């Protein structure tokens, strides 16, 4: 426990938030292609990755894809099925796109998502959720972005059985020192939530910067500080501080239960939402549900030093893999997020419009959207719309 805390407080060196607008990307001409890592992933991953490559080529996007696959053996250097080379590739290229990855069952290795998050220090998960014209859900005018703190909070992984004579903190110390005399109470487990100023400030800074650079009007901090006074209180304090630096952006604090209620009754009440880990997890999926589900939701993970890893958050759908039935929309929209991060706004807008128009038109839709087109037909329709 003490070691864990020490690591958190001293941690990896933080670069200033100006690195978010990575200077190295400011001058990309169409003659020098940008290198980006691509993880096609498993199941339908390779097919939808192929769609992305086709659409990007058709839109003249100068990206050089550096493809990496999940290996079949655990790499001892990373303790995961992702090799050191794959991870280094993202660290070098600073930008990447990831398809769905199925974590192999079994022990003795870290989950793939956890590996990526820890190694690349991905601290914020950003998901824009907007209603797609032409694809009807119960909600028509959703236009919001969820920004979730992705490194700590309720998912810090500190769970244990409660001990009888000592508080759990002392028990962890006793474990660390290999003292064996502590008795454990059966049938009682405890979970610890950690909130640090560093992580909270980092995600709050990103949320307001995002709002400013994308022309958004309001940031809402979601919390349960009326109950979790110290932890969510600290998170709110950090959001308050950052809000003061952006007087032109409206700022509000909403309790998580109100937030859920407001979202399902009137999602237009929200613009940008910033949240700690657990609420972010639940709310970002809830918002995906409002607009049509994970198959249509783009997502981008932001890391230190301006790293951005866009990903499709749906599963690998092994039952339709290889059958040319998969919907590449989520991965394509995530690719668009990646382009915006690289400041290739013109092409991002082109591709985005093409996707929206194709779905709105309704002639070419994959099975999950209620249509009969194959992946290749859908992709071709998008290329034609460019």
């Amino acid at each position, binding site marked *: 426990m003490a070691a864990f805390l020490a690591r958190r407080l001293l941690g990896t060196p933080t670069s200033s938030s100006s690195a978010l607008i990575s200077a190295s990307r400011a001058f990309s001409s169409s003659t020098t292609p940008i290198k980006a890592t691509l993880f096609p992933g498993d199941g339908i991953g390779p097919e939808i990755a192929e769609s992305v490559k086709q659409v990007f080529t058709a839109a003249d996007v100068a990206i050089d894809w550096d493809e990496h696959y999940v290996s079949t053996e655990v790499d001892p250097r990373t303790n995961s099925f992702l090799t050191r080379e794959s991870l280094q590739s993202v660290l070098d290229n600073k930008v990447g796109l990831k398809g769905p990855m199925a974590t192999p069952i079994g022990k003795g290795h870290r989950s793939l998502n956890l590996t990526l998050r820890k190694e690349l220090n991905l601290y914020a998960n950003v998901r824009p959720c907007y209603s797609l014209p032409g694809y009807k859900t119960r909600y028509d005018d959703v236009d919001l972005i969820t920004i979730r703190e992705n490194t700590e909070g309720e*998912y810090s992984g500190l769970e244990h059985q409660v001990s009888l004579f000592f508080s759990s903190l002392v028990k962890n110390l006793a474990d660390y020192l290999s003292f064996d005399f502590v008795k454990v109470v059966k049938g*009682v*487990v405890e979970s610890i939530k950690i909130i640090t100023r560093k992580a909270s400030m980092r995600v709050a800074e990103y949320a307001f910067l995002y709002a400013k650079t994308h022309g958004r009007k309001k940031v809402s901090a979601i919390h349960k500080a009326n109950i979790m006074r110290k932890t969510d209180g600290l998170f709110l304090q950090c959001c308050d501080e950052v809000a003061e630096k952006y007087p032109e952006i409206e700022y509000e604090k909403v309790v*998580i239960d109100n937030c859920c209620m407001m*979202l399902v009754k009137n999602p237009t009440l929200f613009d940008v939402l910033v949240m700690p880990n657990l609420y972010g997890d*639940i709310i970002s999926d*809830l918002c995906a549900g*409002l607009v049509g589900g994970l198959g249509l939701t783009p997502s981008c993970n932001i890391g230190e030093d301006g790293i951005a890893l866009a990903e499709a958050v749906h599963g690998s759908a092994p039952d339709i893999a290889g059958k040319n039935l998969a919907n590449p929309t989520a991965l394509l929209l995530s690719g668009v997020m990646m382009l915006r991060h690289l400041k290739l706004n013109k092409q991002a807008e082109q591709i985005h419009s093409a996707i929206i128009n194709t779905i709105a038109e309704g002639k070419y839709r994959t099975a999950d959207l209620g249509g009969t087109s194959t992946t290749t037909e859908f992709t071709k329709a998008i290329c034609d719309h460019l």
Partner: protein
Amino acid sequence: MRGLSMRLFLVSLRVFMVITKFCSERIAKYAFEYAYLNNRKKVTAVHKANIMKLADGLFLESCREVAKKYPGITYNEIIVDNCCMQLVAKPEQFDVMVTPNLYGNLVANTAAGIAGGTGVMPGGNVGADHAVFEQGASAGNVGKDKIVRENKANPVALLLSSAMMLRHLQFPSFADRLETAVKRVISEGNCRTKDLGGQSTTQQVVDAVIANLE
């Protein structure tokens, strides 16, 4: 959610979840018994055991054990983020949902919002010796002086909660009469408070309910 909390340098720690076998079993038993007595077909346990392996793992274990004693009731499990997504897209797939404390708060408010909001959802808090009935969801409806001054508060939630109380006290026919009257007033549509899109005052809705009592 328990209250042990401390500050250590710039870090805030909190023991935010204590799950015990005793409490998990207790709530699971209540959920299944409620489903059985109210002729509900399915109980869904909402959890995040893929991440909170020990805590929610213990909760799920308790639910599974109780489920075995009710073979006539379908039992399934769903992760809380997927649950919220399914609720907003296809709420009709759910019947009875049993959850630990934190997720229950979120899920209850989400479900209440989908069904009409804080103004219409009833609720009850049940203990071994006592029971207290109140609105099912509290979001946005607490401390709103303006609503009170303008007589726009929706009495439906509390009326339906009192019907639940009557049922608990084993006065089923009174409970039925009250519920039927309230539901008729809402479905008729010409007497609704602001939150349901109408312009009636609280008193007008109450009068309408009384008029509809058989």
